[in-house]
């Protein structure tokens, strides 16, 4: 099975994994060979077989709804590469140059503190989340 460099770049993007051009080339070859190997599974007819997601036959494992103290804030932030004012700090999510106060599609489709909107993503693309799609 062969895969293209374009596919490798797309998968790297999904995984938020930066790859050098050289790595893209190497992985294109290696992943192709590994996928060629795993294609061996196609020899087996598994239409009537249920998948094993858990080897243990366990279900309904619960916890009590009893609050317990978590981490003190300084400990919660102790490992953070960058923290400020009691928060974890990340590069600003709104792209620079955008008019102030207008959130991005990305942000809107997520949970933003301003909007209090829900963490549901937009529903484009295959295998998307559940939604009230009417089409």
């Amino acid at each position: 099975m062969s895969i293209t460099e374009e596919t490798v770049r797309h998968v790297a993007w999904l995984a938020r994994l930066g790859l050098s051009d050289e790595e893209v080339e190497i992985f294109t070859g290696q992943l192709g060979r590994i996928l060629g190997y795993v294609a061996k599974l196609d020899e087996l007819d598994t239409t009537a077989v249920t998948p094993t997601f858990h080897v243990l036959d366990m279900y309904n494992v619960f916890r009590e709804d009893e609050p317990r103290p978590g981490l003190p804030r300084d400990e919660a932030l102790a490992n953070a590469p960058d923290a400020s004012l009691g928060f974890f700090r990340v590069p600003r999510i709104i792209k620079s140059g955008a008019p102030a106060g207008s959130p991005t599609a990305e942000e809107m489709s997520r949970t933003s503190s301003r909007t209090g909107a829900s963490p549901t993503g937009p529903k484009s693309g295959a295998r998307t989340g559940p939604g009230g799609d009417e089409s």
Partner: protein
Amino acid sequence: MSENERYEAVIGLEVHVELGTKTKIFCNCPTTFGGEPNTQVCPVCLGLPGVLPVLNEKVLRYALRAALALNCEVARFSRFDRKNYPYPDLPKNYQISQYDLPLARNGYVEVNGRRIRIKRLHLEEDAGKLLHEGDGAQDKWSLVDYNRAGVPLAEIVSEPDIRTPSEARAYLESLKAILQYIGVSDCKMEEGSLRCDTNVSVRRKGETGFGTRTELKNLNSFKAVEKSLEYEIARQISVLEDGEEVVQETRAWDESREITVPLRGKEEAHDYRYFPDPDLVPVVVDQALLDEIRKEIPELPSAKRQRFIREYGIPEYDAGVLTADKRLADFFDECASRYRDPKVVSNWLMGEYLKYANATGLSFAEIPVTPEGLVELLNLQDEGVISGKIAKTVFEEMLKTGERPSEIVKKRGLVQISDENAIYAVVDEVIASNPNVVRDYLGGKEKAFGFLVGQVMKATGGKANPAKVNAALKKRLGKE
């Protein structure tokens, strides 16, 4: 036929409700709203390396309660999946949710006699909150608070059965009432414990297919849900009337301009790579558990409305208003079961009580007056201890302080004067000092009588029993 009448809208709602458990869905951190940033976190909800989630049993029970109250079929077997999506508000860069085997499906809510179907109800964990330093584009940072990360959410997705913006609002209000009734969520839109996105498309009446839909976000109130849909439907119709096509996109409601705007930036094609979370085991719900949960569900709004009409004989409109909120309904229920005329109770609640709540913005829980207090007040009025007018004054005080009406009446000396001698004394005084008015009255001017009554009331500080004042005046003026 106008444009709008030739089209109909097709609307579906996606609602996220925070379940009111004490702790988060997969760890023991508290869920209280408004804590200092990153003070309600632990290794599990921070997604530190090596940690594992364990499901809060109460979360399941609350969700089952909601599922049953919304007439859903509960899945015997369901499980949790990972929705993979890197974003700083998700500590693990995936969200634990339910994908192909949700907890419940195929429910419905009755809204003004129409049945709005519910497609599915599933559980998931909430994300953290992002704040942006400053407001200008020059600011370089966003800040992350994980207190909300891991708060339990039920996502309730309707079928596209809703046809009008007001019906969307009514559906949301019904949903909110039901969830509050069963005690699983406080449903405060302003605190984000109830959030709503809508999907809307339009089509010519009579068509059965669907038009291209848009998704609306940034809906922070029931009003915003309704207004944004009104705007968006009109917009889509005019696009079609112009011979153009509706673009499938996500739009945001701009509250200040009252319009919907397309979200800037191209949306990423998402690939969530759902797969069953290997750290969690499946959830199996058997009949015994369902029976147990069913017992936890109190009388729901629609049943209560019917009972109020039947048992208390109040109008359907009153019953609808009173049952929209469980606390208000319980308040009414308690008063009405102890007082001879439930309609009087309804009038007080729908009048003075709701007026006060709206004016102050206080929730029913924050208003200290008790059902016992209101019944006592009504009895004082019936017994003639206070007049109707005084009763309103007393109630105003009760709404603020919660003090018993008898105490207020006593403290402020508001007891009605019914002693005939005392009333005659004042009446005689008023007649004596207003000879001209008396003459007018006796000369046929009926209005003059009202003036005289007013003078008596004024002299007694409004405490005189009005019926007795009337009787006394008439007797003295020889009209009896």
